[in-house]
């Protein structure tokens, strides 16, 4: 074989081995954050919190640092309500926030206001934060998005959400969505008017299937789906008239209480 052929074959072989290794590794693309359109009119506190969680894990890139690898405080697993109060009371605190929501917001726009011990920039003795201000490039969260993140961080450990929904949301729907969260499953069923169509609790309406022994027929997951997305599976012999917007109008807590209650109705 001529030298040139051997050399070419050898080069090609080596390059292909390297390519092969690159192709064996997990293949992930790093997508640029998308500008998601959010329907502020239909925004409920629950979808707002869900938006916050999505921003935290994707566009905000918070999980790049805030995870369990010691790069930054693992705020997903810390109770941020408690942590915020503790840090507000710390003598090293130099910011101007007074409550939990204010502290979380400040941590995002001015991370240096309080630098968690051991996480400061190398060599700065915890006086400078390595966290970028998230309302600036490269992360560039808007005020609404930061509020959503704050709501998420407050809500995830069952704390009270004190940030308001974006002001552009029309007044009526905001007023309806935010007030009185049902305390029990029975209350929630009453609040959302399930008994208008279903036989449940002391109702015997027949527009929809009876829910009295629903736990015997459907699993909790199927029940959840029937409420969140009623048109996914239509029960035989019934018209598809069940409202599809419960998911947006309910708090996660209300939904879960209801699902648990129905699943246990055997």
């Amino acid at each position, binding site marked *: 074989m001529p030298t040139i052929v051997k050399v070419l074959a050898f080069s090609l072989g080596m390059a292909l081995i*390297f390519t092969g290794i690159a192709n064996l590794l*997990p293949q992930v693309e790093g997508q640029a954050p998308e500008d998601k359109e959010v329907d502020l009119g239909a925004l409920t506190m629950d979808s707002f919190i869900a938006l916050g969680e999505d921003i935290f894990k994707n566009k905000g890139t918070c999980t790049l640092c805030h995870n369990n690898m010691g790069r930054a405080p693992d705020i997903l697993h810390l109770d941020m309500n408690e942590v915020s109060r503790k840090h507000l009371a710390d003598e090293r605190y130099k910011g101007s926030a007074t409550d939990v929501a204010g502290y979380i917001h400040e941590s995002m726009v001015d991370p240096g206001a309080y630098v968690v011990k051991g996480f400061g920039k190398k060599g700065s003795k915890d006086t400078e934060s390595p966290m970028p201000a998230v309302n600036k*490039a490269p992360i560039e969260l808007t005020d609404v998005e930061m509020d959503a993140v704050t709501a998420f961080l407050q809500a995830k450990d069952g704390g009270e959400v004190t940030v308001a929904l974006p002001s552009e949301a029309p007044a009526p729907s905001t007023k309806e969505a935010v007030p009185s969260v049902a305390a029990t499953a029975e209350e929630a069923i009453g609040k959302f008017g399930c008994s208008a169509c279903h036989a449940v609790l002391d109702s015997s309406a027949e527009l929809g299937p009876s829910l009295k022994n629903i736990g015997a027929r459907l699993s909790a997951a199927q029940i959840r789906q029937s409420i969140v997305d009623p048109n996914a599976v239509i029960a035989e012999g019934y018209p598809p008239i069940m409202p599809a917007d419960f998911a947006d109008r309910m708090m996660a807590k209300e939904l879960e209480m209801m699902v648990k209650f129905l699943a246990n109705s055997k």
Partner: protein
Amino acid sequence: MLTRLISRSTTQSRWQTRFWILALLAMLLFFIGNVPDSSSGIGFVDAAHASETVAEEAVELKGAPKLKREDYPQLLGMSSRSIVWVIAQMHLYLAAFVLAVPLFVTVIEWIGVKNRDDRYDDMAHEFMKVSMTAYSLTALFGGTLAFALFLLYPDFMGYMMRVFGGQTLVYAFLFFAESAILYIYYYSWNSLRYGNKKYIHLSLGILLNVVGTTLLFIANAWATFMMAPSGVNEAGAVTGNIWEIMRGPLWNPVNLHRFVANIAFGGAVVGAYAAYKFLSAKSLELKAHYDWMGYTANFIAILAFLPLPFAGYWLMAEVYAYSQQMGITAMGGILAWLFIVQAVLIGTILLAANYYLWSGMSRCDGSERYRYLIKYIAVTLVVCFLIWVTPHTLILTAKETAALGGSHHPMLGPLGIMPAKNIAVNLMLIATFLSFQLYRRSDKEVTVAWAGLGNALLVTIYVVAIANVIFAGIYYGYFTNTVYKVGSSVMQVVSTLIVIIAGVTIDSLMFKGAKTLPSKWGQVSNRAQYALFALPIAFTWLMALMGYVRSSVKTHWHVYTVMKDNSPDNYIPAIGHAGNMMTIATISFVLIVLFIFWIASLSESRQVKPVASA
């Protein structure tokens, strides 16, 4: 009612930006009258700048353009990024090669003068010959690259031109100067060969390298500006002078890393040239010549390679200091997997280099004294290599985690963490240096009286350094829980560097005027020559890989934090796709290099068709 969250706040910030621009403008108007044009600083003064009118200053303070997807021209539905990717890579390969070769050629030429040995001079001349064809191709690809960039990314290039302005003219001027000096240097080789004239020639070589290195540093500034912009405000409007723009936080680390890496790369490519000629040579005399040439090229490549990981770590440390976010994106996000490929490549380089040295020891009977050590070195290299490629823990965004099925690699263990890798890397470097040193010693018979003492000292240094590398790694890595584990790697690096420096120093003193044993050049095995091909191929691929990291850590930005990339290609491609691109670039480069070798041999002899008949 649908409201775009995003646009609401950008209008707001656009107004803020306008306000700031106006405020800055007012300040500028105020200062321009008072401050003499002393701000242009060192070096690259834009002559036009000083005479600019106030109105033009106002234009210059415009921020970076905000582009929409429609603003990006498409060529025949092809991915613009892929086109620019391959062309830029070819230009970089060739440029790295032609800038590196004169660096060591001048040194070899000087060695030839000092030793009064014409062989060195001839070899230096021949290295230059290879680089001459590459030079025109570099210019060709450079022109194509500029054309492609202006065609496919007009607004981005417009912004870069606005930022760098006159500096690009300096670049163009230096390019012409480089060409002129290069041709004079090469073609005057024989006419300025002896006596004082040789010193004129050597001075030309030095001038050539000064110009070439300046070119490199200027071009580096473009890349580092895109990663870590300086001299511009948040909106991308130019606020500093050209010196402030160039002197970003990553400029010097990249300057050093590329300068050294280029030498290693250039050495590896001429090594392949020598190997190619060796394999095609018919006479023992020619084989001997190219054997020696390959050996020298390999020597250059490895010597330049050894400090590279340290330069790489410095670069990475500066990236972290500039932006923790960018640092983690590179080392702990989706890109982290690529460092496994990097480890494979560097492992390949080290194994190939060592194999070549061991094979080369057969040239000299004196090597028998050291042969028993090879097996230990080999075992060390392989074990360390395996530790190095053990994947590190990775953390990702929720989406990536879902795509990978968990953030932790199943093979994760104590070997996957950084301190273990640091031990492995440093031991591999020490082992390679040992191979190198044994090789250098194998054809020499020591004559100085303090040889025993020198050897004892050297062995002690090796033992202490190795113990220190292991101890620092284990102690700081596993038994302390400080976040300052970095401290351990500094200790390790220092140990490794001490071995290298002490090894070179002691040996050069000890073997000064030593008796040289005869070497049989030209009888080395053909298989050893393939190690000389493996080296540049791994290097070439590695360069493409690192270019991919450099470009990807900017995520969806043309210029990080200042100018967004809204093109259809604004995502980080998956490693497999990137790997395919790298292989396309590498194979194209191999073809070009073979073409260059062929051209080089055309001029040298009366053989009509060396390639076809070989």
